[in-house]
Each structure stands twice: as C-alpha cells, then as structure tokens.
C-alpha cells in the first residue's frame, strides 16, 4: 500500500513538476507570475487530441509535433502580448496572463465544447506488477516524459549558448544586455520553451487522464505553490517542489481524506512561507 501510494504520488508529482518548471522559467526570467501556464497544457492536450482524431496517431508519436507547435504558439503569444505587457506595471503583466487563460479556456469551449475528452487506444497500456505495487504503463509514460524533459531543460540551460544567455538575463538584465546578449530574444525563447514544456506535459497527460477546457484553472495554484516551495525562479527547485506536492497530495488524499488534500497542500505551503519566506531552497 505504502509503495503504491508513493508511486502514485511521484506520478502526480511529475505533473506538478512539469507545470511548475514552466512557471518558474517565466517567473525567473521575466518576473511574470504566469496564470496561463495551465491553459497552455490544456491547449497541448487538445492539439494531441485533434491530431489523434485526424490521423489516428498515438500521443507519443504526436509529441514532437505538439512540442514544436506549442513552442511556436508561445513565441506568438510573446510577440503579440507579453512583450507589450512587459513595458507596463507588474500587476498588468499578471492580469494579462490571467485574461489570456480565460480567452484560451473559453475559446476551446467554443471550438471543442465543454465536455470531457480522452484519447482512445493508446499504444502502451496495461500494468506491470512488482510485488504489491501495480505500475500503470500509461502513467509510466508521464514519468518518463517528465524526466526526459527535465533532463533536456537542464542540458539546455547549462550547456547551450542560448540557455546560458537566458540564465544571465534572469540574473541581471542590464548586465546581460551590456555583455551583448539580446535580452528580448532571450525572453522570447524562454517563453517559448515554457510553452513547449507545457506541450510535452499536456501531451503526456492525455495518456492517462481525461480533460476538458477548464482543466488548467484547477491546477494553477498548485503549480504556483510548487514553484514557491522550491524557491522562486529556480527550475531545479520547481521540479523538487512539484514532486513534494505530488507526494503530499497523494498521501494526505489516501491516509487522511480526499476532500482535505488540497487544503493540506495549501496549509503546508502557508506554514513554510510563514517561517521561511523565500521557499525551501531559496537563498
């Protein structure tokens, strides 16, 4: 039982982690609290769904397309909306992403209806039994995707020129500009990558979850909390924060009460920021 819950908790954690890393990237680089990250995931789910509907492709096969599409979608949003919002006050930036989320959710309701959807006939399905633990292969897809995405993200941020430029920009925009980094491009790419992460996450989630247009809003606050737990702006911290969230979520849900599990997450978060205002791993 314990191991089973731990496994489910880690699976749940990978979802939070994927969400949180996207939020943390945007927060760290351009100091925007992005309310639309959950909606980006939702859009990715529907893209996967439509690809499957039109061509019958499995979500796994569609994933590269979804990621690229979401990356371009992110760039588009950045060019049309975010770049402009960045010139305004911080609060406007936050509200713009909230309004964007509202537009995406309701746009999707108009486009695809408000009913729940799912992708049928997955390539990988069934369970593996490991002693007392039943491992669902569908959820394994999610876990593997999350690990691969996190790995790629770390590689990108630490090893590539663009990644280093983004990190430099997030630390000190002016200094980065002085040493010849095009901060506008760095912002744009960072926003695109954040959308691409949502793309990978959303695509993988269709493997084991139903979804509807307003799925993003339910997640939002927990994505934020995960980011805060890890200490803002740090991607590694966001990943760990997400995993912790998943484990708290499942353990309180299983051993205490399902109805109070989100409250447990919120209360633990509030206690942490009360006593450690910069997050668990914040400096």
């Amino acid at each position, binding site marked *: 039982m314990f191991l089973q819950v731990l496994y489910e908790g880690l699976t749940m954690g990978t979802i939070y982690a994927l969400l949180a890393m996207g939020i943390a990237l945007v927060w760290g680089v351009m*100091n925007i609290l992005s309310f639309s990250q959950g909606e980006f995931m939702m859009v990715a789910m529907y893209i996967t769904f439509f690809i499957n509907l039109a061509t019958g492709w499995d979500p796994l096969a569609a994933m590269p397309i979804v990621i690229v599409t979401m990356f371009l979608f992110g760039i588009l949003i950045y060019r049309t909306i975010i770049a*402009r919002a960045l010139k305004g006050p911080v609060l406007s930036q936050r509200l713009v992403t909230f*309004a964007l989320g*509202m*537009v995406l959710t309701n746009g999707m309701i108009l486009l695809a209806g408000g009913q729940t959807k799912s992708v049928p006939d997955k390539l990988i399905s069934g369970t593996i039994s490991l002693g007392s633990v039943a491992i669902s292969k569908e959820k394994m897809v999610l876990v593997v995707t999350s690990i691969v995405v996190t790995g790629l993200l770390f590689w990108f941020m630490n090893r590539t020129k663009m990644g280093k430029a983004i990190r430099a920009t997030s630390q000190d925009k002016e200094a980065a500009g002085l040493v010849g980094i095009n901060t506008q491009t760095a912002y744009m790419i960072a926003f695109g990558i954040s959308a691409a992460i949502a793309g990978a996450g959303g695509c993988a989630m269709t493997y084991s979850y139903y979804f509807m247009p307003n799925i993003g809003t339910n997640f939002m606050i927990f994505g934020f909390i995960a980011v805060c737990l890890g200490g803002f702006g740090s991607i590694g911290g966001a990943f760990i924060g997400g995993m912790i969230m998943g484990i708290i979520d499942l353990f309180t849900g299983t051993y205490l009460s399902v109805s109070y599990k989100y*409250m447990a997450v919120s209360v633990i978060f*509030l206690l942490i*920021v009360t006593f450690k*205002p910069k997050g668990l791993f914040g400096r």
Partner: protein
Amino acid sequence: MRLKSVLASEKGFVRQVVIVMVILALIPAISRGEFFVSTLCLSVIWAIMGIGWNVIGGYAGQVSNGHAMFFAVGAYVGAWGLKAFHMTPWITMWIGAALCMLLAFIVGWPLLRLRGHYFAISTMAIVECVRIICTNWDLIGGATGVSFFEKEMSPFYTLQFQNRVPFYYICLAFMLAFIIISRVIQQSKFGYYCRAIKANQDSAESAGVNSTSYKRWAYMISAAIVGIGGALYAQYIQYIDPVSLLPLSNSMLIVLIVVMGGIGTIWGPVLGAFIMTFINQYARALFNQLSGLNLFIYGVLCLIIVLFLPKGLISIFTNDKVKGVFKKNKESGKEAE
C-alpha cells in the same frame, strides 16, 4: 466651520460625486426592466468590492489575489444570520465586516510580510483553504450551499426585493459612503503612507512609516468593505455556495475590475465595475446558446484594456496627454498628431 473648509478644499471631488450620483440615480428612469436593474445592482456591488480591494491593492500596493475570502465571509454571515436567526442584514453585515477585519488581522500577520508574487500566491492559498472548509462543512451548507429566500418578512428588513429598484438605491448609498471613505483615506496621512509603502517600502520605513502596521490596517479596512459587498450580494442572489463564491476567478475578477477601471484612483473601481459587469451580463444573455463566448469576449476585452490602457479606463478622462491633444486640437488643428 470645519466641514465648510473641507468642502471648499474638496470642491472638485464634491462636484464629481454629485455628477456621478445624479447620473446613477437617474439611470433606472431609462428602463426599469428586470434584467437591466439586476445588472445595475450587480455593478454597484462589484464597485463596492473594487473600492474595498483598492485600499490594499491600489493604495498600499499589496496585490491580494484572495479577496473572494472576505466576499464569502460577508455573504455567509448575512445568509445564515437571516436563515437561522431571522436577523436583518442591516445588522449582520456589520458582524460580517467585523469578522472580515478579524480574519484579515490574523491572516495578515504572516502574509503581509511577504512581498510581490509570494504575497499574491499565499492569499490564493488561503482562499483555497476557505473554499475547502466551506465545501466540507455541512453545518454551513457544505457543497450544496444555502438557499435563504424569505417571503414572510418586509423586503426592507431582509433586503430581498422582488422589484430590485429600491435595492439598487440601497446599494448605491453604500457605494457613496465607501467612495467618501476611499477619498478620505486617499487624502489623509494614512493614504500618503500607504502610497509611500507602495512606491518603496524600505524608503518609506526610513522616512518613519511603520509599514507593517499601515499595511495591516489597509488590509483590514479593505476586507471589511469587501465583506459588506458580500453581504449585499448574498441578499441579491439569495442562494450561495462555495462554487459561486470562492473560485480563484472571483478573486481575480475583483482585481481585474479595479485595474481596468484605474488602480489607486477613486472612480476607477466604479467605472471598471459598471463597464465590465454590463459587458459580461449582456454578452451572456446575448450568446446564451454559445457557451464560452461571453467569457471569451470578456477575456479579449481585458487583454486589450490592460495592454493598451495600463492606467485603466479612467485615464481616458484624466490623462494629461489626452487632454493636451484635445486642447491642441482646439487651438490649432495642425499641431496635433
């Protein structure tokens, strides 16, 4: 004597109040249609909440994303006061407001030390807790909520009107009171200190501002006003449940209304509330067969206003640049761009 000198120095504000109130008081003369008057009531209630949020979010610059909590507390106290104890909302709304202040005091103690996004996220987390408590606490109605329509008593006792025109005027009176309070705050030491905290907290501290105390008071006053708004809303809708009172979007809509109207201004919340409520209500009625379209339109409008008018719709009236352009136009048409 003193009142006279205050009125003299506040000539501009008094004139604005008179103009706006006369216009708002005369609006029901245009149409007494049920839907129209309901929308008016709702606009005024949102305006009250906007004015309340503006005290902490606009003046003191602490952007709370969790004011739905105070809205709900006000609504629940009003609802249960009437349903269980037959107490008139005229009394219970003050109990609700006091409870909101107490809650703000307790919650503000750890939260107001946080800055920026952390404060916003923490306020969201608190509302999430309140939402879950309300959903699971069967004593106060649980997930199904409370229905408390009272036919037996006088509508002036219950504030539940069949014809909502009197209710509109009652709400309007409250709004007027809060507008005046908002102005007094803005023009007082308290308001200056709040603005100083918003501009630069460390700098304000070294100029002698006890930021913790001022933020806490701003938060409490803000909570109380929003609580009254919630009490009025409860009697307006006569049915409340956690799903309609406590979603994240409610907290965000209060913020949106103020920002779209004009954050930190007296009339911004009122303007924002009226315009956005009317758009939302009529879009919903107009496109009721196309679910999602009303909020889609609402979202697009928010995007446009927030992006292109960062100081809100009110800046159309107050912006010197705009005024300047008009003046220039009058003086010499060529000079204008």
